């Protein structure tokens, strides 16, 4: 029992696992003094499926669809990271055309992932309309995925060494059409939110994480950029031909919820820029590199990471020379970023906690694996 101004007592409260604003099954144990959060502890693992164990018991090819089930709103990025890691082990590189198509689909997926974030986060804060707008545009992206590979969410779009499918007739045009359509829509979301008094009051100055905090907690992705660190793996250590594209890394100043929102909005526009360049320079040629039918990488281990919509997504794969990985480790951005919640939430109000969980942009499928 702590003595406070009002002589109130502390209260320990369970938020979740079934709570609409936790975007899945996250349980946060909150210690409260009135409405002020004194401390939080996350209880996770409700969605644990043992993805890494499954990986050890499947061949390299068989495991590829499983990675889509981690961050299921950005499954294309998951697949890209896994394919790049196995390709690194094999010492092969995807063909130029495959790389460009991968970039197009990954960036479209980044937009879709950010749209899900924006819509649900706005809903948490109390703005209902943006959800429908965001899902309307996301639908166009999912339609492109569906036409390309038959699946909308868990796409399994890429294969080790390149692509399974050639692009369909009119693929380029549909991507460009989406880009043309999307930019005015992004302005529309901003019109609804950026100048909105309630939105700004709820987000500005809440959930602050400085650059040093981010580095200490290993926080990456839009959250790190919102704190002001101009760091993006697509620029720092380019993969899949990202060095060929001209785009900016948006950054914030304060590392609060509002900056995270602004960074993600700008990232979607930058993704549009990348998609346009990739479509314009889409090379002809084969879509599959020379990869043996049975994938059997030599003995060794690699760590390969990509800039997923949520941050650094890494795969550490150990090969013992057989057809199955000896060990697959996934370094999930959501898991690591979520750990910083205790730092961000200390001293805020319960309602702000909801906003902070929102802008952390976690997907529990990836946190728990």
């Amino acid at each position: 029992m702590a003595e406070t101004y009002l002589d109130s007592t502390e209260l320990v409260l369970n938020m979740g696992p079934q709570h609409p604003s936790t975007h899945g099954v996250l349980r946060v144990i909150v210690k409260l003094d009135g409405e002020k959060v004194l401390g939080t502890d996350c209880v996770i693992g409700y969605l644990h499926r043992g993805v890494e164990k499954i990986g050890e018991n499947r061949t390299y090819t068989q495991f590829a669809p499983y990675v889509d089930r981690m961050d299921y709103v950005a499954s294309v990025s998951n697949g890209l990271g896994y394919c790049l890691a196995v390709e690194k082990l094999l010492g092969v590189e995807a063909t130029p055309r495959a790389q460009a198509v991968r970039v197009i689909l990954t960036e479209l997926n980044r937009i879709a992932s950010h749209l899900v974030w924006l819509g649900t986060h706005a809903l948490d804060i109390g703005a209902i309309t943006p959800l429908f707008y965001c899902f309307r545009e996301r639908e166009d992206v999912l339609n492109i995925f569906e036409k390309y590979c038959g699946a909308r969410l868990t796409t399994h779009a890429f294969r080790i060494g390149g692509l399974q499918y050639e692009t369909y007739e009119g693929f380029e045009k549909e991507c460009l059409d989406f880009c043309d359509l999307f930019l005015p829509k992004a302005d529309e979301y901003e019109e609804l939110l950026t100048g909105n008094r309630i939105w700004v009051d709820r987000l500005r100055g809440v959930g602050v994480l400085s650059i040093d905090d981010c580095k200490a907690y290993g926080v990456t992705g839009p959250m790190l950029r919102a704190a002001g660190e101009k760091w993006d793996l697509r620029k720092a250590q380019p993969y899949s031909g990202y060095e060929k594209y001209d785009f900016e890394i948006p950054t914030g100043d304060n590392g609060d919820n509002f900056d995270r929102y602004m960074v993600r909005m700008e990232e979607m526009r930058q993704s549009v820029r990348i998609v346009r360049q990739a479509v314009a320079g889409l090379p002809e040629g084969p879509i599959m590199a020379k990869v043996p039918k049975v994938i059997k990488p030599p003995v060794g281990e690699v760590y390969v990471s990509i800039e997923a919509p949520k941050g650094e997504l890494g795969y550490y794969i150990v090969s013992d020379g057989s057809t199955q990985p000896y060990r697959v480790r996934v370094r999930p951005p959501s898991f690591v970023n979520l750990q910083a919640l205790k730092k961000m939430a200390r001293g805020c109000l319960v309602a702000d906690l909801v906003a902070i969980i929102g802008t952390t942009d976690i997907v529990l499928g990836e946190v728990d694996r």
Partner: protein
Amino acid sequence: MSLDSAMPEEQKPEGVQGAGPAPNEPKQPADEAVPAEAPVAAAPVAAAPKPAAPPRPAPKPAAPPPPPPDWTGDLPDALKEEFGEKVSEFIAYQGQPSFVAQMDAAYEVVETLRDIHGFDYLVDVTAVHWPKRDEAFDIIYVLYSFDRNERIRMKIRIRDGQKPTSVVEIYETANWLEREAFDMFGVEFEGHPDLRRILMPDEWTGHPLRKDYGILNMDNRWVQENLGIESGQ
């Protein structure tokens, strides 16, 4: 049609496989699709072992792969100078620098890497189980430096039951990462402030990512008590 004509050739060496679908034909004469489908389904089964057999001996006599190149540069030299025998195996497999540190020096090496060499971001801490080895666990630390734009891996090898020092005091992020390694492998980290399970339930027994923990293994008692079912399978 081409498949049908190919069938007799494939059946010749097998015999037994070919005899399977044949007696089915008179039993279901009404459906003409059945005999057509059956050979198609049987063909890959019969054909599968044939092409798989010849390539197998081919890769085996191939020469062992060359050892990975050494990792050279300022950083390995500085580490060797400071820690001497306690750091070794500086290699750059597929261009990815890594080295091995002894368990008792690991904490100091990580501290030096952050404070002097600018590796201010701990990307990942994980483990690999090698049950046949005397030192049954590799603990892998992936470190990144924003200034140098470099990523390195440090590995320590420990015996089952040995406790490496926790690096939570150096990097906050190690808290959950080490908890996960403990949860999945049972590796305890000395000095960790809050070493609990993180993904598995607290009362669970066993550490799922150990190699001796089969994919169908589970804590039956926990499943029966908490889920109210006989088995999770």
